[in-house]
């Protein structure tokens, strides 16, 4: 409505302007009545100063009053403005002044500038600090992740020579060991596969493995491995047991941040639980191993031990190279409810899961679990289709379902 009224006035004024011939007479009449005749027109200097906008305010007001009523002077001003492009009025020329530098310095620290500059500087500082902190955090993650990869290749030869301790927390390895039906070479191959998988996929596990140098290694696993390799000659250490996890000294613990440590402890607990279950399995298999070790065939095995060890070494080297080639292809993944899971031992881990993230542990059938799946049916589907322990990331939270 208001706009319509404005449009009406706009049209009326335009129509009035079309009778412009009369406006000049109106102007002259006004000028006459206000005591300004034609002789009182603005002079050329006043007109040009007005057009250039360089007049002091009081003088300017006086000339505005004249120009509002004098079409002749206004016409000159309009022409001057259009000729010189005053609409884009240039800044006043910089005058030579000795105090210019100090004026600029003073202007730099003036309150109007500081009012905006201080928050900007503070914000920039906060962003820079945040960025540096984030970079440091990422750097420590990379250290924890990369260390085993660097040490894995030399670990094979080192292990062959020194035959150091076995890894403590490879779930895949323990699974393979539990099966007990495979040949030693195959078991070694699997061990390398599992080691490479661990190195690639689990930061926490990697860090836990690194930390394992100072954490007591569960002896049942080591014993069982040694018992499986009962063909060694007179207690000499087996030379065909390359263990990538037995890397050189891990980075100092200080390099791991708190999140990594928490995740490492959690993973260590899981692996310890798994390993603790191992002796029971071993006990079941023990008679057969013992029979192989202490039975009549033992002497034959012992006699041909060195040859066999050489053959196993060759096989193990082959299997190492093969496992390195096929490790990427052999990672078992499944997709359920739109989430992709990677198998890691008996664990199904959501590919979106970050080991530094805390998890909410739920048992199948528990009240909490039922409440969760009632709200999130997708998790129920996942829990049903994937057996064993499942780590799923759902709506920004990580759940461990066991």
């Amino acid at each position: 409505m208001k706009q319509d009224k404005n449009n009406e006035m706009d049209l009326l004024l335009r129509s009035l302007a079309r009778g412009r011939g009369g406006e000049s007479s109106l102007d002259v009449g006004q000028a006459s009545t206000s005591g300004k005749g034609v002789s009182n027109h603005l002079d050329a200097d006043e007109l040009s100063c007005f057009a250039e906008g360089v007049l002091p305010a009081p003088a300017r007001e006086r000339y505005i009053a004249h120009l509002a009523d004098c079409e002749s002077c206004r016409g000159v001003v309009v022409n001057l403005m259009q000729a010189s492009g005053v609409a884009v009025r240039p800044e006043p020329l910089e005058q030579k002044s000795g105090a210019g530098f100090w004026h600029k310095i003073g202007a730099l620290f003036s309150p109007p500038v500081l009012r905006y500059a201080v928050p900007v500087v503070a914000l920039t500082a906060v962003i820079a600090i945040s960025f540096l902190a984030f970079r440091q955090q990422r750097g420590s993650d990379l250290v924890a992740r990369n260390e085993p990869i660097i040490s894995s290749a030399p670990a094979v030869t080192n292990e062959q020579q020194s035959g150091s301790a076995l890894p403590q927390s490879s779930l895949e390895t323990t699974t393979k060991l539990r099966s007990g039906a495979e040949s030693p070479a195959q078991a070694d191959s699997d061990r390398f596969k599992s080691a490479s998988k661990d190195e690639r996929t689990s930061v926490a596990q990697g860090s836990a493995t690194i930390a394992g140098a100072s954490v007591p290694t569960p002896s049942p696993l080591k014993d069982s491995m040694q018992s499986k390799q009962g063909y060694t000659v007179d207690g000499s250490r087996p030379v065909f047991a390359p263990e990538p996890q037995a890397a050189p000294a891990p980075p100092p613990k200080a390099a791991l941040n708190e999140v990594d440590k928490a995740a490492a402890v959690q993973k260590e607990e899981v692996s310890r639980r798994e390993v603790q279950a191992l002796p029971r399995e071993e006990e079941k298999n023990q008679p057969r191993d013992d029979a192989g070790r202490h039975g009549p065939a033992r002497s034959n095995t012992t006699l041909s031990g060195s040859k066999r060890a050489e053959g196993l070494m060759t096989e193990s080297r082959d299997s190492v190279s093969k496992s390195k080639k096929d490790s990427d292809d052999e990672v078992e993944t499944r997709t359920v409810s739109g989430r992709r899971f990677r198998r890691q031992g008996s664990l199904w881990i959501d590919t979106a899961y970050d080991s530094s993230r805390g998890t909410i542990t739920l048992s199948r059938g528990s009240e909490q679990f039922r409440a969760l799946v009632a709200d999130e049916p997708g998790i129920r589907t996942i829990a049903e289709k994937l057996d064993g322990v499942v780590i799923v990331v759902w709506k920004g939270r990580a759940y461990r379902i066991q």
Partner: protein
Amino acid sequence: MNQRTIQIEKLLSVGASRLLARASETHSLTSETLIPRIRAVVSKYVLRDDENASFEAITDFIEKLQADDLCLIVACEQGNEKAWTDLVERFSTTVRSAARSASSNEEGAEDLTQSIWAELYGLRVREDGKPAGKLAYYSGRGSLAGWLRAVVAQLAVDQHRKQSRLVQTEEDSDFDRMIQEGQDENDWTGHGGVVNPELEVSAKLAGAEMQKALAMSVQQLSAEDRLLVKLYYFDGLRLREAGALLGVHEATASRRLTRIHADLRRQVENRLIEKGWSRPETERAFSEIALHLEADIEPLLAGEGVLISKENEIAG
């Protein structure tokens, strides 16, 4: 001579010295030759409107004078031939360009250009024996090029006024008759469709009364608002240009124009009500007249559009 006058004289002296120091070419001028000029300029633009202007304001005003241009003009005025040659060389293009803009043909432009240089130099002689030209009126506050354009424009207006004084008088009387008798050649309500002669006469009278009320209301606006209306509607400037002349941003000029529309409408309504109109009648009259005006303008705009498209076709 009171203390303030003495202080102002000191400021003028210091200002003249600083102005000479700022000038790239002093043309052998001294501060003594510049002081009278600067005194006159300060008096005209500062002290005339504010007798008690602060010393800082006076100093600031002098500091912003165009040192090079003012020295050149004062040197010309002093009869410095080299300065005069410099002036002609530097600004002959500007003067010729301004003369072409103000004249309808090349011959007239050339005549005007010659007249300008004669006016500047001065055909008459002052009491002190120096030529009494227009150079004495340049203050140095604005640019010399702008001042020369203004001199050319004023001279062209004067010449035109002398030639068409008779015609001008007739136009004036036409406009006065339009205001007094309400007979507008634009015929606000004369658009076709009114069959009843009685209604037609009535509508014409209503339109004339509204136009008269509007013209009077425009005159009642403040000087700055009135200037904005005239620059925008009468002189055809864009809002950006009109705002620049008034020293305000385009957006400010737009807001001001919207407020002026509302003020004018209120004033016109009040004037019409004073003459016996009812408020609904004024509302209806505004709508109807605006409708007719819109219908009048549309064919014009359409005609311009056709012309433009034809020009484009020819050019393309």
